């Protein structure tokens, strides 16, 4: 049977219409399958991404029970229904009593290999970082990835004043409140995290300070 199939392919030289038809049919079928799988998995994927972000906000702002997305427009922070493309947004975290706990601010910048995206919890009145979480990074496994795997490094952001800015120093030589110990073997990645927070904060601090009436938004 095998032989017969082979000879029939060999003897009948197919015309170009048949070749085009075969490939178009294959392409069409493939497209249909891909689109339906995409449509079927999209809600799960989108929900997961939203969940990850939300959980990160709750982690960097301890004591938060609800949150709200905020943007900076016309000189103040407001809640909007739809965020414009390219517009930066932050999260306001609120406690059980409805009062503002703090802000969760996303920032990103170049790391050692690729862009690092992170989120940090910030108290504008105390000028203090109260938590940091790496959302996305492709740092070297075993070295740079300690910026989220090394518990001690992550914990050093739990109560860290940005005053006037954070400084990463060599491990063990921390002497001031605004200094953190860099990770041995991952100095560039540690400094990148610090730089991203400093830069993001420089941009957001004046905006947060001006909007003292934010507590009434909720």
């Amino acid at each position, binding site marked *: 049977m095998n032989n017969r199939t082979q000879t029939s392919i060999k003897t009948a030289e197919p015309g170009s219409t048949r070749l085009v038809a075969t490939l178009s049919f294959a392409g069409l079928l*493939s497209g249909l399958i891909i689109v339906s*799988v995409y449509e079927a998995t999209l809600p799960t*994927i989108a929900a997961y991404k939203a969940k990850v972000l939300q959980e990160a906000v709750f982690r960097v702002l301890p004591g938060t029970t609800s949150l709200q997305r905020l943007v900076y427009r016309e000189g103040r922070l407001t809640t909007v229904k739809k965020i414009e493309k390219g517009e930066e947004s932050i999260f306001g975290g609120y406690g059980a009593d409805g009062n503002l706990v703090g802000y969760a601010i996303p920032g990103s910048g170049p790391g050692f290999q690729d862009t690092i995206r992170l989120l940090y919890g910030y108290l504008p009145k105390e000028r203090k970082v109260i938590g940091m979480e790496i959302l996305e990074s492709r740092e070297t496994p075993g070295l740079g990835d300690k910026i989220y795997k090394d518990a001690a490094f992550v914990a050093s952001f739990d109560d860290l004043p940005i005053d006037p800015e954070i400084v990463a120093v060599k491990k063990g030589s921390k002497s001031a409140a605004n200094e953190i110990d860099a990770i041995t073997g991952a100095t560039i990645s540690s400094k990148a995290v610090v730089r991203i927070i400093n830069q993001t904060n420089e941009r957001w601090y004046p905006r947060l300070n001006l909007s003292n009436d934010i507590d009434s938004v909720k």
Partner: protein
Amino acid sequence: MTQKKQDAYHEFIKGLWRDNPVFVQVLGMCPMLAVTNSAVNALAMGGATFFVLVTSSFLVSSLKRWIPKQVRISTYIIIIATFVTVTDFTLEALVPGIHKELGAFIPLIVANCMILGRQEAFASRHSVRLAVVDALGMASGFMFALFSLGAVREILGEGALFGFKLFGENFEPWVIMILPPGGFLTLGLLLLFFNWLKERKDNLIQRLDDMEVKAR
């Protein structure tokens, strides 16, 4: 029937051991070196490749009658790419953590020459049954190879297997093993080991043959 069973067994074992795609044919090196920095990643990559290879072989073998010879390679690639994309979305929805770790290497399964090689060399010339058995064997062989590499690298580089710490607190991880050079190093040593095994076996067979000749 027994002959048929024997054939199938032979095709399966061939991929798993004798013609192992990695250790003997040295195919599919890109994912082999890139994502074997932990046992879990290696198994996930092996699983994804397994699914793509088996389904593609099945489809190619069942459709071989209708695929004109002139466009066969493009058709195989379309079939493979479709299954790879399906795997990509499915993994992202079901196990997002592992999907993130594997990153760009899932779409790159399309370019794994082992898969296209099996379609061209085997699935397009044999019955559906044998094609699937062959694919199962090759895919298991690939997975076994990925896992060997991933396990060795994770044990040496992190002191752990599947994330469980194996050694005490004093173990200093050999970080180079989970970095790219460690992949090359481990692969080289494993290839050496498997070639040594093969040589030893060949020598043994040779000696047995000699003894047989002498006995006569």
